[in-house]
C-alpha cells in the first residue's frame, strides 16, 4: 500500500521521510516538485501524480505537503484519508500541525508514523490507542524528561489494541467527570447579486469533549432528529440504534472527538442570518471604480450576529483602494489584493458600511468580473437549523457526570456574487 511518506514545506524542502517498505529515493519527489512549480496555487497541485515507477498521492494541509509514494493499485481516497489522519494526529499531539512542530518533535513524529502503518497498511490510527503507546508531550513531562532523560514512549506495552473497545483506552480516571457537546452548524450559501439565494444548505457537526471515568455508555437524543437528512458517525456510534430510534448511542473515546456530522434536510428553507447590499462598479472610462458594501442582520432568531468579516479578492488590476468603514476596520494587502473587513458584532440600529473608491492601474481594462464577497460570521447559542439536543443519558457508570451542550452557528462557504 503506502510505501513512503515525505513531508515537504511550501518552498520545496523535504524535511521528513519515512519508509515502510524498501527505501524509495527522495528524488521521486522531483516529479511532484515539478508539478508544484507549474501550479499557481498550492491547492492546484494534482493530488495524484503518475511517475514511471510510482504513483504520488499528496495532500496540502496546514501549509505542508504530505506526499506518499505508492507502487501498486490502491484506492486513492484510502491514501488521502490516511494522510489527513496523519495531519490530524500531529495536530492532536502537538497542538498544531506545522513545519516547526514536526521538526521539533522529529523522533516522536517518526515513531507515530511507525505505529500508524505496518508494511504500508494502517495499523493504529485511533488517537486513544496511539496516545497509550506514545505519550503526547506536556510541559510538565518535557521538564521531567529533560531532567531524568526519559522520553515519551510508553513504559509498558499498550493494552488498547486488546481492549474490547478499540477506540477507547482502558482505565480512564477523572476527578471531575464531564461531557461537553458543541453543536456547530455552518451555513453554506451562494447568494447572487440581487441577494437571492442560489444555493444554501446547513452542515452541522457535533464535536464532543468527553472526560469521563471508566467505560461510560452514553445516549444522546435530539428533540427533532427528523431535521437530520444525512449523517456520518464516529465509529463508536451504534448505527442500528440510530436507524431504529434516532438516538446516538456510543461508548465515547477519551478526550476530543467528532461525534457526528450531519446535513440538514434541504427542503427546510435555510434561514440566512445576514443580508449584504453591495455595489462594486468600475467605470469604463478612466481607471476608477467604486465599492459600497453594507451588511445587515436578516433572520437571526433574536440573537446577535458576531464576528462578521467580509473578505474580497479584488481583481489583479487594482492599484490602490481608499475606503472608509463606519464600523470595524479593514485591511488590504496590495500584494495578494486581499481586502478583509472585520466588522465584529452586527448592530441592527446602525448598519456597518464600507465605501470608497478603487483605482485601477493606468490603462488596465475594466475587470470582467466583480469580485465575490466571502462572509464570515458566528452566532452563539443558536443552531440555525433549530436542532436541539434533548438529553444525554449515561449508563454503565455510577457517578454523575457534568453535562453541557453549546450551540454555535457559523458561516461556512458563504459567498455573495456581485
Amino acid at each position: 500500500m503506502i510505501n513512503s511518506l515525505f513531508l515537504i514545506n511550501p518552498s520545496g524542502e523535504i524535511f521528513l521521510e519515512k519508509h515502510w517498505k524498501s527505501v524509495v529515493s527522495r528524488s521521486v519527489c522531483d516529479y511532484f516538485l515539478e508539478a508544484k512549480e507549474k501550479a499557481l496555487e498550492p491547492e492546484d497541485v494534482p493530488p495524484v501524480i503518475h511517475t514511471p515507477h510510482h504513483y504520488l498521492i499528496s495532500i496540502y494541509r496546514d501549509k505542508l505537503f504530505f506526499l506518499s509514494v505508492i507502487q501498486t493499485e490502491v484506492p486513492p481516497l484510502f491514501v488521502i484519508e490516511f494522510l489527513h489522519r496523519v495531519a490530524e494526529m500531529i495536530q492532536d499531539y502537538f497542538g498544531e500541525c506545522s513545519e516547526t512542530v514536526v521538526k521539533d518533535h522529529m523522533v516522536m513524529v517518526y515513531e507515530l508514523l511507525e505505529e500508524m502503518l505496518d508494511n504500508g497498511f494502517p495499523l493504529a490510527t485511533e488517537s486513544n490507542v496511539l496516545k497509550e503507546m506514545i505519550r503526547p508531550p506536556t510541559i510538565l513531562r518535557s521538564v521531567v524528561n529533560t531532567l531524568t532523560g526519559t522520553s515519551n514512549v510508553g513504559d509498558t506495552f499498550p493494552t488498547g489494541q486488546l481492549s474490547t473497545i478499540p477506540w477507547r483506552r482502558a482505565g480512564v480516571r477523572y476527578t471531575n467527570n464531564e461531557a461537553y457537546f458543541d453543536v456547530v452548524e455552518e451555513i453554506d450559501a451562494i447568494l447572487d447579486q440581487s441577494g437571492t439565494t442560489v444555493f444554501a444548505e446547513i452542515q452541522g457537526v457535533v464535536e464532543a469533549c468527553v472526560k469521563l471515568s471508566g467505560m461510560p455508555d452514553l445516549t444522546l437524543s435530539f428533540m427533532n432528529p427528523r431535521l437530520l437528512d444525512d449523517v456520518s458517525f464516529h465509529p463508536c456510534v451504534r448505527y442500528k440504534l440510530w436507524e431504529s430510534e434516532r438516538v446516538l448511542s456510543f461508548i465515547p473515546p477519551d478526550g476530543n472527538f467528532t461525534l457526528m456530522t450531519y446535513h440538514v434536510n434541504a427542503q427546510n428553507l435555510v434561514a440566512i442570518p445576514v443580508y449584504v447590499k453591495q455595489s462594486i462598479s468600475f467605470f469604463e472610462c478612466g481607471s476608477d471604480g467604486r465599492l459600497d458594501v453594507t451588511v445587515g442582520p436578516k433572520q437571526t432568531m433574536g440573537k446577535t450576529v458576531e464576528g462578521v468579516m467580509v473578505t474580497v479578492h479584488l481583481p489583479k488590476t487594482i492599484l490602490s483602494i481608499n475606503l472608509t468603514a463606519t464600523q470595524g476596520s479593514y485591511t488590504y494587502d496590495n500584494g495578494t489584493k486581499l481586502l478583509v473587513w472585520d466588522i465584529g458584532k452586527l448592530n441592527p440600529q446602525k448598519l456597518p458600511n464600507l465605501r470608497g473608491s478603487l483605482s485601477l492601474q493606468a490603462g488596465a481594462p475594466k475587470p470582467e468580473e466583480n469580485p465575490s464577497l466571502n462572509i464570515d460570521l458566528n452566532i452563539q447559542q443558536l443552531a440555525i437549523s433549530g436542532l436541539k439536543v434533548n438529553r444525554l443519558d449515561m449508563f454503565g457508570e455510577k457517578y454523575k457526570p457534568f453535562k453541557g451542550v453549546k450551540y454555535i452557528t457559523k458561516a461556512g462557504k458563504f459567498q455573495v456574487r456581485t
Partner: protein
Amino acid sequence: MTPMQKLLQLPVNAMNMVKTAQDQMGQQDEAKSPVMTPDGGNHNWYNGEPNDPRHIRFGSGGGDQEERAHLEEGGGSLSSLVTQPLRHDDLKEMLDSNKDSLKLEAMKRIVAMIARGKNASDLFPAVVKNVACKNIEVKKLVYVYLVRYAEEQQDLALLSISTFQRGLKDPNQLIRASALRVLSSIRVTIIVPIMMLAIKEAASDMSPYVRKTAAHAIPKLYSLDPEQKDCLIEVIEKLLADKTTLVAGSVVMAFEEVCPERIDLIHKNYRKLCNLLIDVEEWGQVVIINMLTRYARTQFLNPNMNESLLEEGGGEKAFYGSDNDDDTDDEEDKEEKEKKKTEATAIVKRKPYVMDPDHRLLLRNTKPLLQSRNAAVVMAVAQLYFHLAPKAEVGVIAKALVRLMRSHSEVQYVVLQNVATMSIKRRGMFEPYLKSFYIRSTDPTQIKVLKLEVLTNLANETNISTILREFQTYIKSNDKDFVAATIQAIGRCATNIGEVRDTCLNGLVQLLSNRDELVVAESVVVIKKLLQMQPEQHSDIIKHMAKLTDNIQVPMARASILWLIGEYCEHVPKIAPDVLRKMAKTFTNEEDIVKLQIINLAAKLYLTNSKQTKLLTQYVLNLAKYDQNYDIRDRARFIRQLIVPTDKSGALSKYAKKLFLALKPAPVLESPFKDRDHFQLGSLSHLLNAKAGGYQVLPDWPEAAPDPSVRNVEVKESVPEWTKCSSREKRKEKKADKPFYSDSEGESGPTESADSASDTASGSESGSGSEESGSGSESEESNEESESASEEDEEEEGKKKKKNVEKIKARKPVPESESEPSSGEEVKKSEKKSKPRIGSSESESEEDDDSESESSESEEESEEESEEETKKKKKTTASKPPSKPPKKENKKEKKEMSLLDFDDFDPAPSPSQVTPLNNFLSSSLVTDLEGLSLTDNVLSPTTIVPSGNLKTYELLHRITGEGLSVEYCFSRQPFSPDLHMVAVKIQFTNSATSEAKSLHVEDAKLQSGMRIKEFPEIEVLPAGETVSVVMGIDFCDSTQAANFQLCTHTRKFFVSIQPPVGELMMPIFMTENEFKKEQETLLQSLGQLMGMNEITEKLTLEEKCQGEHAVVQRVTTAANLSRVPCGSDKECSPPVPPPPFPIHRFAGKTVTSGSLVLVSVVTKEDGAAQLTVNCEKMVIGTMLVKDILQALTQ
C-alpha cells in the same frame, strides 16, 4: 590521528560532559572515547565543540534542532560528509555506555537522522548490540533503526534475529506481536525460513492481535520471496477462517496482495466477512469491500439483467420475446437479447430474476457504512453499489457522495472524478443534488473543472436553463482555464440538448466580442463544432466569425474559422474569397496549423468558385511549396495535384470535389469520463484512466451463477465472538430488542433471504424505511397485541388454539435439547405478559408504570428471544417434520391468548367486532389453558385461517414521540367500514409523565388512489396508559407507504405505514376444484395479454420446515391467505408426476381490486420444493414470491 589531536579532544569532551547533570557518566565516556573512535576523523576537536553541548542542553526534543543547526553550519554536502563520521563517534560512545539515558539520547539522534533522510548506516554495529536492551524505549528505537537498515547490512542484521526469536515465545502477546512485526520487516532473504515458521506459528496464536500481525507479515514475506506463495496461501486460508474483526481486515489485505486470483478461498468465509464488516476497523473495511465487489461479480447474476422485463410487465415480453427480439433496443437488454436468441425456446419458461440471498446480504451489510466518517469507506461502498446493486437501489449512495464534497479538496477531487463517471451512467441519481455541484470562486481550478463536468453530465431538458444561468456566471470568472472549460461545457450541453442549441449558440456568439482572446478562441472552436450540426441556418454567424480573422490571434481559433468558411463557403459566397485574400497576404506569418487550413480553404474555394479564387489559390500553393514545414509542403503538393487539372493528373482529380466537399459528420462532444467505469470505481486506475500496477480487473457478470452452495458453511457458526460487537450487542439488548433482532438475523447469515423487496420481512420496497420496519418485523412484542382474530370461524379457531397449547404441553417432557426450556420460558413469559392485559381494568398501567422496569423486562425478553431465535434457526432441526418449531408454537399460543382477550382489551375496536366479554371469563381462560389437553390435530383438512404471528411495527418511538410510543400491526381482519381497506391496528402507549390529549390523524399525504379511514380521535390518554385503535388504509394494492401526521394536542409527528405485500390481500375460501379451475384458466391464458401470471420458483426447504404444518404456518404468516382444503393430497394431484407429492394450496384476493392470488407449494423429497404464485398483478406476484420464499427458506 595524532596524539596531539587526541589530547585536544579530551578536554573538550570533558568540558562538555561536566555541563551535564551526569558528570560521572561523562567521565566514563571521556575515558572511553579515544579507544572507541578508531576511525575518528581529524576534525574531532573542531566539531565536537558546537556539537555536544547542544544536544545536552536541548534534551530530548532538542536533538533535531541541533541537527538542523549543524546542517546549516555544515553549509554543504562536503563539510557534512566530512563531519559525519565524527558525529557518529559520539553516538557510538553513547550507545556503548551502560546508562540507558545516554543510549536513548543517542538513539533519538540517530532516528532523527533517519527521519531527515540522512545516512546512519555506519552505526549499524553499534546499534544492533542494543537490540536486547532492557529499556523499552531504547528497544523501540533500535527496532526502528533495524527495520530501516537491515536490508543494507544483512550479515550484521542476523545478529539480532535470535532476540526476536526469543520474543516470539514471550508470554506477553504484545511482545510476541512486536517481535514478529520487526522480524518480518527486516528484509533479509536468508531468514525467509525463519519468518515462514514464525508466521505459521503466529497464525495459530491464541491472541487475535498476534494473528493480525501474522496477517500483516504475509505480504512482507511474499514480497521478499515470492516462492513462498503456496505456503503463504495456506496461512491465509487459515486466517481467513478467523472470526475476529481484528484479523479480518489484515488477512484480506494479505489475500489481495498475495493471491487475489484465489477467489475460491473466499466462498466459505463470504457470509462471515459480510457479517463482520460493520465492526472491522475502517481501513480493513475498505479492503474487504473492494475484494467483495470483485467476488460478487464472479458469483452472482447481474441484478439489472431483467429489469426491463419486470418493469414493463415482463410476462408478456418474455412470451413474445422471441418474436420481436429486434425491437428491444434497450441497452440493458442487449446481453439478454443475445441470450434470447440462443435459447429462444427456453425463453417462455424463463424465471424472473431473483437475487441471490448472499448478494442481498452483501448489499445490506455494506449500506450502513455509507455513514462512515472515513471517505475511503464511503467511496468503497459507493463503488460496490454502483457495480453490484440493482439499478433502483444505487441511488442511496448519491447522498453520501455529495456529503464527501464537503471534505478536503483532495477528497473532493477524487470523489468528483468518480461522480463524473457515475453521473454518465446514472444521471438521475445525482440530479437532486445538482446545486451541490455549483462552483464557488474560491474552489481550486481542478475542482472547478470537475464540477463543471458533473454539471454538464447532469444537464437535461428540465434543468438546462438553471445550469446555463450558472454557466453565465462562470464565464465572467477571472480564472481563464475555468472559463475555457465552461465554454466547452456549454458546447456539450448544446449538442446534447437540442432545445437549447440556439440559445447556447447565441450566447457563444456574444462571447466572440469578449475582450479576452482566450475566451474568444475557445468560443470559436466550440461554435465551429456546433455549426457543423446545422450549418445552413447560421450563415450570419459564419459571416460574423469571418470578420474575426482580423483580430483574433489564437492559432486554433483562426484555424477553426478558416475551416468553417471553407467547409461552408457556399453559404458565404461573397466573403470567403475575401478571407482567402487576406490570409494569402499574411500566410507567411501564420502558425502551421493555420497555414494548413489556409491551403484547405484555398482548395475548397478553387473547387467551388474557381473564377474568383484561381489566382489566389495558385499564390497560396506557391507560398506553401517553399514553406519550412514539410507537412505544409506535402499538403500543397498533394492538393495541387488533386485540384488543378493537368494532363498528367490522375483519376483522382475527377473526384476532388467529392474528396474535399464530402459531408463531414458532426463531432460528438462527449465526456472524457465516458466508459471510465470499466475500471472499478474508486480505484487508482479509474482516477488515472490507465491500468495501475496490481490492479485487479473487475470481472463481468457471469452468464449463469456458479453454485451458491459453495458458500454454505457446514458448521453453522454461533454468534461470532468478536470484540467490538459484543459490547454493542449488550447495549442493544439493553436498549431495545428490535435492532438486536436485525442483528442476529444478520449474523445467522446462511439462512438469509431473498430479494430486494422482501429481504426485510416487511416487504417494503428499498428506501430508508425498509430498514426500520425490517428490524421491527420479527419482534416478538407483536404478539402481545396481535388481535388477528379470525373472521368467520372464531370459535373453531379458539378450539384449535387450545389444541395448540395442548400440544406444547404435551411436548414438554419430550427431551428436545435446547428448544424445550426455552419454550417453557416462553409459556411463562406469555403468561406474565398476558396478565396485565387481562386485569387491565384494575392494573392496566402496571407495565408502563416505570419505564425502567419495562425496559429491563424487555431486555430479558430480547435476550431470551434472541437466543431462542438463533437456536431456532440452528438447532431445532431435530424436531420431527410434522411438528412445528417450538417457537412458532409459542407464538401461536400467545396469539391465542390475545385472541381470547382481544375483545375486552381493545379499547377502540372497529365497531364490527365488538362483542364484549367480561374480564372474569378471559382471565380464567388463561389459567385454564395450562390444564387443557387435546389431541394434536391442528392441520385438519379444513380451512385454516391464517394464524401466524402478527408482526408489530413501530410507528413512533418513545423518544421521538416525547413519551408517546405508537406501534402498529396488520390485524388481518376485514375493515368493516370499507372492505377495500386494510385494517391497521394502532396501539398508543403514553409513557410520558403527563397525559396526551386529542390524538388524531391529520394531513395524510397519500399516493394517488390511496385512501385512509382515520380512527376516531382519542380524547385523552393518561400517563402510563395504553390504548388501541383500528384504522383502515386502502393501499391500492401497492406497497407504497401511507404517510400522515399523528397529532397530539401539542405536537405533530410525521409517520408512515408501509405494508408488506402479504398484508395487501385477504383470504378467500375456495375448494380445491375451484382452485385448480382458476389455475387452469390462467394456464390457458398464458399467451394472452391479460392473463394471470405464474411465477414458479424452486427452493429447498430446510429440515425443520419440511413438515406440512410448518409450510402452512410459514406461508400464512408471510401472507394473509387461507389454505385451500384438500383432504389428502394423494387423491387430488393428477398433474404431479407419479409419487404424488403433497401440494399445499392457498388462496386469497387483493384487498383493493380483488384480484385472485393463488399460491401453491409442492414439496418433494429431500426438502426440494416448488413454489408457484399466480396473480394477475405482476408486481404483487413477484413480491409475494420473494416473501414466501424467504419465509420458507429461513
